[in-house]
């Protein structure tokens, strides 16, 4: 796991060119039968700054498909988003993007 905010990490990010080749990670939100749909939408807007439409579409995907990839990108940022989503009690996991 990448440790956020450490000096060592910042140094490595600047000096290791392979960082850019690191695989992206998916932030996944899973459905649960308790959390209100409008609450999920509000959290997506608050955490990612998504538009109402995009947040609503992702929420519906969670609701109908059981899960949704709500963000993809570098691991460090993915962890920050996962922590923020879990802070609001959305069922969130991280998975590396295959290939």
């Amino acid at each position, binding site marked *: *796991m990448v*440790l*956020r905010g450490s000096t060592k990490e910042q140094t490595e990010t600047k000096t290791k060119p392979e960082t850019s080749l690191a695989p992206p990670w998916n932030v996944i939100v899973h459905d*649960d*039968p*308790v*959390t*209100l749909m*409008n*609450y999920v939408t*509000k959290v997506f807007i608050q955490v990612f700054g998504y538009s109402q439409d995009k947040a609503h579409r992702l929420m519906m995907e969670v609701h109908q498909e059981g899960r949704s990839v709500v963000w993809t990108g570098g691991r460090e940022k993915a*962890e920050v988003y*996962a*922590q923020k989503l*879990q*802070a*609001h*009690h959305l*069922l*969130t*996991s*991280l*998975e590396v993007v295959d290939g």
Partner: protein
Amino acid sequence: MWAARVSEGFVFGELTPATVETLTGVPMLIESADARVRQRLLPDTYDAAEDEQQWRRHAVPELERLFLSRAQLVRRDLATMRSMPKSVDKVLLIRDEHASAWLSALNAARLALFVLNDLKAEHMDADGYAKATAKQREAVLRIHLLAEMQSVLLGDLELESAGSFEDFILE
């Protein structure tokens, strides 16, 4: 229970003793040491064991501190509940600056009630509710009550709008 908008935030009134008991349980549910509650509020995030261990070492303590801080905020707000005139019912003000913390705290409490009472998704609708035990039914009712409060805080319901909380209470 009714809700109204005042200049300071949201007012919830006619909180019966049963409702107050449910609300008093919110911080206790967030702080619950029950493994099912901990697992739901702090879920597994990685498939790989090593990654998950790192996550639990670095991300989870921060989340735990946040949850405890929210529980304390809710407890402090609940301590300011006032009695309604000539009634055992109470009235609660949730200030705007506390609304977001309350929203998440209510969600945590609802999730905790769900797992502590072995509820399934089917219990949340009418058919499933009919098949639930008495204890489970009570938990479902509490979950729905807290959802009503969440809906108010989310702005999903049209509310009567008043002036200040003090003026509103004196009316």
